[in-house]
């Protein structure tokens, strides 16, 4: 083969190599961005970046790790943009701390829980059940956009508070309030729809 043919067949082999990761990258992106077309976009950009410089990877796993790293950065870029361009807070996000707390705690009874959290027994077993994850996803979908971004960056991407604040342009306290709401609502939703003792 002459040089040109070698380059073409290299390029095609490279594309195959990258395409093998497309599904995984898409699932990853969709979980984080919660929007199909945005997920497709960042995956496409990631694969393009991959085409441009992917030499020297000894194996599939290494290539996937590298691609995922690029993808994570692109996801954070989207979050940063969305956060800074965000329209006014949703009703749920703008709720005062007192009003939010009143959903769960009774101010007339020394701020005890309205309904005390029940025991979930051995919740790990649920992780193997498809139906659990369907309910988990349904509960997650209820998170308002900014809360979902903060929650995703913290819990899925493992970013520290100060990194999240820097990227999204919020204060540490904002961050903690949003994480609190995300966790309280998610926990309640799961208790009601999955773990709740039907009584």
């Amino acid at each position, binding site marked *: 083969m002459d040089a040109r043919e070698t380059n073409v067949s290299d390029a095609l082999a490279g594309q195959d190599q990258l395409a093998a990761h497309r*599904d*995984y990258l898409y*699932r*990853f992106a*969709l*979980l984080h961005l919660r929007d199909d077309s945005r997920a497709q976009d960042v995956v496409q950009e990631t694969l393009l970046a991959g085409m441009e410089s992917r030499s020297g990877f000894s194996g599939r796993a290494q290539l*996937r790790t590298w691609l995922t790293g690029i993808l994570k950065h692109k996801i954070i870029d989207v979050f940063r943009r969305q956060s800074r361009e965000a329209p006014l807070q949703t009703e749920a996000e703008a709720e005062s701390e007192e009003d939010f*707390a009143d959903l*769960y*705690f009774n101010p007339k009874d*020394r*701020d*005890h*829980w309205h309904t*005390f*959290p*029940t*025991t*979930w027994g051995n*919740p*790990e077993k649920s*992780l193997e059940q*498809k139906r659990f*994850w369907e309910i*988990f996803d349904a509960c997650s979908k209820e998170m308002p956009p900014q809360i979902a971004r903060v929650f995703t960056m*913290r*819990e*899925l991407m493992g970013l520290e*508070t100060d990194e999240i604040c820097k990227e999204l342009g919020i204060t*540490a306290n904002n*961050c*903690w309030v949003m*994480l*609190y709401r995300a*966790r*309280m609502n*998610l*926990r309640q939703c*799961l*208790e009601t729809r999955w773990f709740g003792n039907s009584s």
Partner: protein
Amino acid sequence: MQKLNCKEVSVLLSQTEDRRISLLERLRLRAHLKVCVGCMNFQRQLNFLRRAIRQHPALKDDDE
């Protein structure tokens, strides 16, 4: 040592996931959790949620 109520405990438990808490905060938490089953369940459930999310099926890496 001033006691915490359930609402304050829920906020503090959530924050322990995101920042270091002081010794005093830790002591006040422990005092409440000793006598409040509801909040103890809440703490366990927060821990479970943190572990669970990382095992979301969408993150499974073992495609064949």
